[in-house]
């Protein structure tokens, strides 16, 4: 018996982006199944963030096609783009929280500005999102009064409050220590399962991504040189994957642990 093919929520074909003479993306393609957590790996400067920003419409690609839920996101079609934006959220590396707004106002912003909801419902849904991220006690604090981890959770609350189908994460663990990196990935995986959205994470934290993700893709020299399950990534004999794996010290350590039969702990700390 063959398994039913997974429905693709997002399909990217042949994405190109150049900055001056430098080609950052040179035909990158990716298929993201609905409800999955996909991690895009790659070295620093490989173009991972550019790839994600092209998807989120922050950067305009030079060429290539992006299909969302079976519809082509054509560059000139404002209606389709708006529809895509209403079903997609983006979590920036810097969190991009509004420092002049309180936590509640930050979360309420996309609801107030993009949906026709009564004020009471906006407040209720915003408080609910804060509660789900364990931030309800800090609703009146400004982002500057919160710790880095709390800001990350607040950004996630803002991203999920509109109940998006797709959440794009740009280096969610950048600048964090290994313990916090693990906690952030665990948090993302937990909420991705809880809310059922499709998650696309760009990262260079390989061990955490391999534990949390359903699918892994490797971006190198502007192209996706690998796409498969974490198990397939670990077992892959492809030269690019081997080269990347070997360059990641932590990954090597983790693989050694797996070989020794040790368990990798990913509990929220």
């Amino acid at each position, binding site marked *: 018996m063959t398994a039913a093919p997974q429905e693709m929520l997002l399909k990217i074909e042949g994405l190109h982006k150049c900055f001056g003479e430098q080609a950052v993306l040179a035909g990158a393609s990716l298929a993201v199944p609905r409800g999955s957590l996909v991690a895009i790996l790659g070295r620093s400067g490989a173009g991972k963030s550019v790839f994600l920003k092209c998807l*989120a*419409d*922050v950067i305009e690609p030079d060429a290539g096609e992006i299909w969302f839920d079976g519809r082509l996101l054509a560059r000139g079609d404002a209606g389709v783009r*708006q529809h895509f*934006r*209403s079903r*997609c*959220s*983006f979590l*920036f590396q*810097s969190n*991009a*929280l*509004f*420092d002049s707004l309180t936590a509640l106002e930050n979360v309420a*912003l*996309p609801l*107030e*500005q*993009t949906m026709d909801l009564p004020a009471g419902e906006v407040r209720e849904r915003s408080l609910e999102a804060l509660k789900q991220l364990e931030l309800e006690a800090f609703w009146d604090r400004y982002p500057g009064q919160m710790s880095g981890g709390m800001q990350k959770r607040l950004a996630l609350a803002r991203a999920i409050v*509109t109940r998006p189908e797709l959440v794009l994460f740009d280096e969610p663990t950048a600048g964090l220590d290994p313990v916090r990196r693990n906690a952030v990935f665990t948090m993302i995986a937990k909420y991705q399962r809880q809310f059922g959205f499709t998650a696309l994470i760009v990262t260079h934290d390989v061990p955490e991504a391999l534990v949390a993700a359903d699918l892994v893709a490797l971006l190198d020299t502007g192209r996706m040189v690998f796409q498969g399950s974490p198990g397939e990534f670990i077992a892959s004999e492809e030269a690019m994957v081997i080269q990347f794996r070997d360059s990641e010290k932590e990954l090597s350590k983790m693989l050694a642990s797996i070989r020794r039969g040790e368990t990798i702990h990913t509990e929220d700390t």
Partner: protein
Amino acid sequence: MVRAVGRYTLEIVQSLGDVAMFVGRSFRMAAGSRKLGRRVVRAMFEQGARCLPVILIVGLFTGLVLGLQGYYVLNRFGSESLLGTLVSLSIVRELGPVLAALMLVGQAGSALAAELGLQRNTEQIAALETMGVSSHAYLVAPRLIAALMVFPMQTALFCCVGLWGGSLSGSLLLGLEPGIYWSAVERAVESADVRECLTKAVTFGFLTMTLCAYHGFNAHRSRAGTGARAVSASTTRAVVQSSIIVLAADYVITSFLI
């Protein structure tokens, strides 16, 4: 030399086109924006309340100095009774709108350019766009609409305080009869002068806040690079260009209305 002039001219024309499109987009997007009124009121409060002390202080001292200088000049010709005329026409026609606009640029304009520059720098503007919220409608349009109302109000206040400063100087310090001063003011200021004053205030408000918003919003395109230097460079450029445009526009409007 010719090539440099040509390139410079093209750059200016391109920038003017850019600014025009920026303003057009802001107002076009604002038309369908939610809760615009609330943001306009907030912007009016920020521009108005933040600048009120400086407007009052500068207005008062402008009137005081004008009263003092005017009194001694007019005294030479035995025409002290015309002090009210001198102070009121100077303030209402020229000094009020120009100085109030320069103060507002220094206070509210620089704050706007720096705030937008920082929001660009910390990806807050990009975040709005990814949410499907127009950053032009959400961040720029309310400030421009607010400026159209705040600048005339602040200018009117500046003029009133300036006139009172002139009266303080002339009557309280130099012994001129207050009735003579105020009746000269009443006779001198006509409705056309007030119209000129408010026309200038609205024009200055629109031009300066547009420039400040434009430079802040496009801080990432700054030649100074990115980060704090880009924010600082764009804020400086916004204030300098706004100050120049106030004086240039003042000359143009005066030459048409005089």
